[in-house]
């Protein structure tokens, strides 16, 4: 149900970082659009670069950064051009906020929850502490917890409650886009379902757009209307969720879907053999070719670009381009 | 659990250590000290060294409180070494007298080219006689002057004549000087100056060929042997102390003693502490409580005063000191750190996994825990060696160390007791101090490099 207005437009985002062993090509040729009230699921295995992408979008960069370039248009304006201070003031947590993986472990144990949830408001909008705390309480209640929890310390809350608090903290400055990096990874199935319900509710209520990062395809389908599959630092498939789950095109996407054990269908899950490649020295040509059942000469020789296979459906695979 | 791994055992560690320049210096110094120690232990076995250190006869031909030879670079003049003139080399003339006795006369010559005066002159006799002979000694200067020194009746076959302490000789020489110069000279006329100085108002050494003549009457079977020792003011690489002992021996022997004391204390203390900490952390419960309380009490005990007490009341020998130091050090606060580490490791999944496949407590401690806690402990162990070395030196300096062993601390102690600094004998203190500092630097540099390896965060420092 997107309203057609493009909130975020990423073009050729590239991120490399330096390590003792060489330069890690963590992200390359990242291109996608996010419209208002879109939920883009970014899926991939661990180490594929999806978390790096989350950090790249809010410019939380590692110390050993080597290359960070591309264009990121936020409501039409290229925020990559902003300097650090301007970015911090105008974008980070103001327009785009993020709920980190393991956010429930990133609360400071010596401060109360309410104070921490209120902190972004105090820092960004220069709101008075008392006002901010009030707003924090309201949000906490909106998250489905009693307002008094604002007075509690992190250790007094369960994992699910802390995660809700982390989400409240991400929402308090009224951002347009919320990046959710594996927001339910350490939570129980029931709690997870409750949090997903919550995320659905507030998305509708506040008209938010999400970038939802996960390795769990089932979970992704709970929220996403668009899916981007990342493999070895590159997007290999980008399409609407409806199309993706019914007709995935890229061999990797198909492998991913096939490996999800399901309750409802009788299909026996299969797995993709091999392991994700090193990003310091990725395979030549298509980065997936060593594990691909359909690979042929061209795949190891030349890297495919994003090929259009349908309305809003792009695949990075020679099976769909010229050559076959 | 960190999985930063330095694989490759000892070789890998060595390679990594050597990548730090400071550590290379440290290792170089350490190797030098080890070579020195080995050399010393081989060429001067310890029992001999102790024996020699205690005796005075062995050093009788050395000057007392001599400076090291190389100080002459700073003075800019050639400083005198000890000259020994044996009577055996003399031109002897013997005349047979009517009563069967021999009138003998020996003259020995030597060259004196130094820019400064000798420190002492002693004549060592070594004779056999039936009746104590009377010996007349004459001094022949390069300018031809002959000075009658003394008529000395030998008191015993191995008699010694300390010319330097002879007050009458000194006064005579002073008088002679004043006559020759025609006034009171600007310096005090000691025996050495009186015999070796040019006749002038300022002290100048008369260089050239000197001679000494001995005249005496001997019975038929008497033998007169003597050695004139003209003591220099410098000796050897390191000089001598108040007992004429070459400081070099003390410095050399101090090296293996310091190294072995330091290393043994450090290793024993560290290993025992580790074991105690591990037991405390692993078994918990009552034994943990007891050990922790002992540690806390030990932390408030005054270490040095107790050590001093022990060494004052009991027989002092290096081994006792070592054991006392170790016993007082093993319950250090470092145990608390080890204990925490062990408790952490105990909670890791692989310990549980090992329990599941049947590993016993002892096996877990030896093969799973200790290999993990040993590496962080090694840099601390190396860095603690200087502390122990200084401890031993400090105790010796206070006079509480082993009185028979030649150690650096003992040398400083001797220096202090004999007022080295007051008398300008800086080398006596500075040389052992230098060795102490050198040893400390070596271990400290290596320890720091090891610490940087073990704790990568410190690399940024």
């Amino acid at each position: 149900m997107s309203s057609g207005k493009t909130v975020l437009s990423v073009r050729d985002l590239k991120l490399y970082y330096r390590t003792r062993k060489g330069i890690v090509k963590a992200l390359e040729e990242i291109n996608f659009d996010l419209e208002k009230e879109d939920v883009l699921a970014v899926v991939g295995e661990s180490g594929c670069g999806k978390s790096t992408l989350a950090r790249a979008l809010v410019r939380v960069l590692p110390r050993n950064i080597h290359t960070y370039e591309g264009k990121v248009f936020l409501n039409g304006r290229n925020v990559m051009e902003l300097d650090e201070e301007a970015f911090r003031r105008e974008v980070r947590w103001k327009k785009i906020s993020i709920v980190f993986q393991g956010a429930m472990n990133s609360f400071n144990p010596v401060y109360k929850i309410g104070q921490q949830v209120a902190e972004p408001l105090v820092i960004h909008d220069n709101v008075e502490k008392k006002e901010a705390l009030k707003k924090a309480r309201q949000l906490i209640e909106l998250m489905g917890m009693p307002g008094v929890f604002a007075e509690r310390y992190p250790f007094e809350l369960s994992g699910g409650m802390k995660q809700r608090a982390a989400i409240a903290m991400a929402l308090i400055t009224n951002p347009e886009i919320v990046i959710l990096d594996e927001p339910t990874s350490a939570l129980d199935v029931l709690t997870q379902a409750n949090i997903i319900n919550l995320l659905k509710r507030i998305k509708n209520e506040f008209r938010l757009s999400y970038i939802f990062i996960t390795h769990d395809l089932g979970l992704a389908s709970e929220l996403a209307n668009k899916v981007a599959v990342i493999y070895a630092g590159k997007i290999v498939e980008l399409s609407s969720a409806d199309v993706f789950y019914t007709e995935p095109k890229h061999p990797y996407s198909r492998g991913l879907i096939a490996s999800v054990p399901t309750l409802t269908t009788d299909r026996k899950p299969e797995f993709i053999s091999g392991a994700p490649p090193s990003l310091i020295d990725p395979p030549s040509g298509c980065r997936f070719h060593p594990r691909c059942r359909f690979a042929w000469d061209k795949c190891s020789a030349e890297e495919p670009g994003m090929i259009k296979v349908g309305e809003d459906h792009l695949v990075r695979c020679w099976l769909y381009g010229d050559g076959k | 659990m960190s999985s930063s791994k330095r694989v490759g055992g000892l070789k890998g560690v060595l390679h990594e250590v050597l990548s730090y320049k400071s550590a290379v210096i440290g290792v170089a110094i350490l190797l030098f000290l080890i070579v020195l120690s080995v050399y010393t232990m081989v060429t001067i076995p310890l029992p001999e060294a102790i024996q020699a250190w205690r005796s005075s006869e062995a050093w009788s031909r050395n000057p007392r409180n001599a400076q090291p030879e190389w100080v002459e670079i700073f003075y800019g003049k050639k400083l005198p070494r000890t000259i020994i003139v044996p009577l055996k080399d003399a031109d002897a003339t013997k005349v047979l007298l009517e009563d069967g006795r021999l009138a003998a006369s020996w003259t020995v010559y030597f060259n004196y080219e130094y820019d400064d005066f000798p420190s002492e002159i002693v004549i060592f006799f070594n004779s056999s006689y039936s009746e104590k002979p009377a010996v007349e000694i004459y001094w022949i200067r390069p300018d031809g002057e002959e000075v009658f020194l003394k008529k000395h009746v030998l008191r015993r076959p191995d008699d010694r004549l300390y010319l330097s302490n002879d007050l009458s000789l000194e006064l005579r020489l002073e008088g002679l000087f004043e006559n020759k110069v025609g006034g009171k000279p600007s310096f005090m006329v000691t025996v050495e100056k009186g015999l070796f100085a040019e006749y002038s108002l300022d002290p100048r050494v008369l260089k050239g060929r000197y001679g000494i003549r001995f005249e005496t009457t001997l019975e038929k079977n008497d033998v007169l042997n003597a050695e004139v020792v003209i003591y220099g003011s410098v000796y050897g690489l390191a000089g001598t102390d108040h007992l004429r002992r070459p400081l070099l021996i003390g410095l050399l022997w101090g090296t293996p003693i310091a190294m072995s004391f330091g290393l043994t204390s450090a290793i024993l203390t560290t290993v025992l502490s580790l074991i105690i900490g591990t037991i405390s952390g692993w078994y918990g419960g009552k034994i943990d409580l007891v050990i922790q309380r002992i540690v806390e009490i030990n932390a408030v005990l005054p270490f040095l005063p107790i050590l001093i007490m022990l060494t004052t009341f009991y027989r002092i020998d290096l081994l006792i000191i070592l054991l006392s130091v170790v016993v007082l050090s093993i319950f250090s606060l470092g145990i608390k750190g080890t204990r925490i580490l062990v408790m952490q490791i105990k909670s890791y999944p692989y310990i549980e996994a090992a329990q599941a496949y049947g590993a016993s407590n002892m096996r877990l401690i030896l093969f799973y825990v200790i290999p993990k806690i040993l590496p962080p402990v090694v840099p601390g162990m190396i860095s603690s060696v200087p502390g122990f070395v200084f401890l031993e030196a400090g105790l010796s300096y206070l006079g509480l160390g082993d009185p028979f062993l030649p150690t650096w601390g003992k040398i400083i102690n001797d220096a202090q007791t004999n007022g080295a600094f007051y008398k300008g004998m800086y080398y006596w203190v500075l040389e052992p101090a230098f060795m102490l500092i050198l040893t400390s630097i070596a271990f400290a540099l290596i320890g720091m490099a090891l610490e940087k390896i073990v704790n990568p965060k410190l690399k940024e420092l």
Partner: protein
Amino acid sequence: MNSDTRLLELEDLRKWFEIRRGFLSSRVNYVKAVDGVTFSLEEGKAVSLVGESGSGKTTLGKTILRLYEPNGGRILFQGKDITHTKVKDLKWYRRMASLVQQDPFGAFASHFTVFRALEEPLLIHNTVKSREERAERVFKALEEVRLTPVEDFAYKYPHMLSGGQLQRVAIARAIILEPRLIVADEPVSMLDASVRIEILTLLRRLQERLRLGVIYITHDLATTRFFSESALIMYAGHVMEKASTQEVLRNPLHPYTKALLIATPDPNPQNRSRFKEVPPGEPPALVDPPKNCRFSPRCPRAFDKCFKEEPPEFEAAPGHWVKCWLYERS
């Protein structure tokens, strides 16, 4: 089903943990992590133990392995009562029952190579005397888990392998002593989604071929489908439902099981337009719990009796047990 083929039997098993309040207080409170579990496992069969965190499933797994001593009930292994056997007399059991843990990276001492880690159990039990024989066993185990060529893997350190590869080594370590029972505690939760199936498939194939009993502990109901013959659903220290895996998935009876099934996400794009109907709240703390149905505070079907009395297990259908008052009449 005579007891001759029963590998493992649990009778009303309880494991409580003491928490002492204060130094001088005499009052002792208990965290009742496992509070009355009964089931049996036959030779060569797999059972899934499903539950969320805090359900007691991990504690149950460790108690079965006698890493804990039970506070109540009995454990019988191949007919032998090992409930209160002293640890020093349990060495034989350590060979017969092994553990695969959740965290592959934590499961290995970082200073042991793969070879050494696999050799450890052999060295401890000293059943294989010569070095060559031990090496043979190690290589064979690596082949079983498809880590080939074995020479490539045997001399690596844990940090050089991926999660999936390490978990294979963990499985190799679990089978090297030729046990009869394996307790796999969430063996794939920390692995990538695409690797999970690989590992579970491997484990299943090994189990079938070597006729091992496997207790598969998990929170992900979906993975039980092709893995185990039977399933137990645990909640707050109790077994709420017990049946064949197929039955549990196709015909769940307990409200909790039903909630679990609804909550587990399937890759279906229509999910985003629906809210999941799941009970709110969190699992209860297990400190001195009240003596009623533990799920009652959250249960959409709870009635008076549920809040007052703890239900026993009712056999609602042949071989299908439910701990719920709703099924009382049977």
